[in-house]
């Protein structure tokens, strides 16, 4: 048994093996930090690099993340306070009046795969719900998605509502008709043209 086998299983998107080997290392008394950092978190860095280079495809990246999370779930009850904490909390949703969620779902899964806790509010989410959830979850970032130009004004409404509530959470926007210029116009903290860009942006905002 070895940590390397867990690492390899994550890269092979093999959830069953990740779970089995993580449990086995835990049972064998291996240092938990080592299982966590070398066996589960490190391979996700390689997954991210290989995805950015075009060597890993989206489904592979997502399933690798899912495999890693399965291993993390086994470790969680044994982790010390502060260990295995997510990199931050992101609240994401498609804005009021809009039911499209394909892009939002992809961003949500990729952010989670990158080590963030994600609260996905779904579609047709009003600004009050975004504000309330951001406060409850102590969110670091709110990510707003829209596919329709007719629902883009709801992004401005939400950004304004966050500011009026005196919240310091960062708000980012995205979706096919959304532009960098629009994000600046409505006072958002960032914009991304695609899902990988959204992950990068969130990492920068939370750092």
């Amino acid at each position, binding site marked *: 048994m070895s940590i390397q086998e867990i690492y390899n299983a994550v890269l092979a998107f093999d959830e069953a093996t990740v779970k089995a080997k993580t449990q086995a290392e835990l049972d064998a008394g291996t240092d938990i930090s080592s299982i966590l950092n070398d066996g589960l978190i490190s391979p996700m860095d390689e997954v991210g690099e290989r995805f950015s280079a*075009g060597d890993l*495809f*989206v*489904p592979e990246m997502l399933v690798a993340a899912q495999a890693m999370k399965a291993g993390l779930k086994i470790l969680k009850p044994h982790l010390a306070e502060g260990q295995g904490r997510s990199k931050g909390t992101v609240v994401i949703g498609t804005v009021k009046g809009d039911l499209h969620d*394909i892009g939002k779902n992809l961003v949500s899964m990729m952010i989670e795969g990158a080590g963030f806790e994600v609260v996905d509010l779904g579609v047709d989410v009003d600004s009050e719900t975004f504000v309330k959830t951001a406060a409850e979850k102590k969110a670091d970032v709110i990510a707003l998605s829209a596919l329709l*130009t007719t629902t883009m*004004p709801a992004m401005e409404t939400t950004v304004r509502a966050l500011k009026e509530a005196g919240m310091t959470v960062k708000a980012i926007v995205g979706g*096919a*008709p959304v532009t960098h210029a629009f994000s600046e116009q409505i006072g958002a903290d960032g914009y991304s043209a695609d*899902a990988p860009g959204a992950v990068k942006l969130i990492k920068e905002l939370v750092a």
Partner: protein
Amino acid sequence: MVDRMQTLTEKDLNWIHDASMEVLSNTGVAFNEGEALGLFQNRGFSVDGKVVRFSEKQVQEALSTAPSRFRLFGRNPEKSLWVGEDDWVFAPTYGPPFMVNRDGVQRPGTMHDYDTFCKLVQTSPHIDMNGYKHVEPQNVPAETAYLDMMLSNIVFCDRPFMGSPDSRRAARDCLEMAGIAFGGKDALAQMPVTVSLINSLSPLQYSSEMVGAVLELARYRQPLLIANLIMGGTSGPVTLPELLVLMNAEILAGLVLAQLAGPGTPVIYGTTSCPTNMKTGAATVGTPETAIISSMAAQLARFYQLPSRTGGSLTDATLPDAQALAEGALTLITAVRSGGNFILHACGMIGGYIGNSFEKWLIDEELCGMVRKMMTPLDFSAETIDTGVIARTGIGGTYLMQPETLKHCRSAYFDYALFAKGGAASRSPADDIAKTASDRLRQRLESYQKPDIDPSIETDLNQYVRHRK
């Protein structure tokens, strides 16, 4: 005629149909709108919350009332069209939020752009009808932009046009404006004047806005183009046979609703489904898979004796370059050759539906003309085959000055407006077709003449729009 693209056999078609019926009767389709759910319930459909399930009998009953061909009327009756069976039309790009210039730079669309597209359609020798939402005009309020677009559709162009199905309210206003233009709303039930695009939300849903529009438009028997854009591997199965099953199930569900709301409403069976780019997660449209889906959708529509919408000049390229035209030509020609009846996005589309390009519009328009010429059958008869000219010209002679050549030299072959045919010496090395198109745009618009319209109709339309804003 040998066509190496796959022709679905009766067995294949039935396999797809039966699998779609399994989806429709077991999983069902969600309609997020109360009136539609009530309608389904009252007609004996299985309704469980928002999910409707369908039986074979219910689907077949609906199919029996949907026509295989219909007449679409323009303000100018000479420009009215037949759609379905062997009749097909080219319609322009629909729905993008941005304009894209020759260098690939995007900017938000405006009403000026929209009006320009209406004028291009009006002056087009190859595009058969006007569309809707050529580009989303972002310099007018979003919630009432459809009124401005409908007004331009009716006033700047006298060809048939596509309607505004963005919501129930937009559909109602579309009907009111069409009524003003065509002699009253009551006349519309006998006179299809708009085709409205209804998209499902894959997998297996219809939004309240789309359902509301179906109900309003079907009541006046205005044709509905019921379509989906399934992204293989994301919002639908990754393998094409299974994707076709999902596609088919969604369209049939929408068709059933349309027939319940307005029996006999023409329904165009449509899709623009495509793969997911597995490296980025985005839809990718300029692909061989898109062409395959397009061909098979046209075949499935014929199986059901419905008109079909597929294809268009579809590309992922972000500027009007060689990739744009290579991908566009592939998808355009496939759709037409496969029997598609309503070729939406026939001109202009760029960047995977993100933009419209004036240059690509003009280049695609020329391509549409070439494709239509390719599809025009030759006439083999005593009148068209006269061996006399061959005998007169003899062995080694020239045909250039024969009377037949003189008579037909201007009409025998396709007349190019744009593509360079004069050889290398006739053009500057810096000129490419996109530049030629760009330069030609102003000249083309100068040829535009606003079509005649009864001044009282135009006044009433303007008043209606002002009142509704």
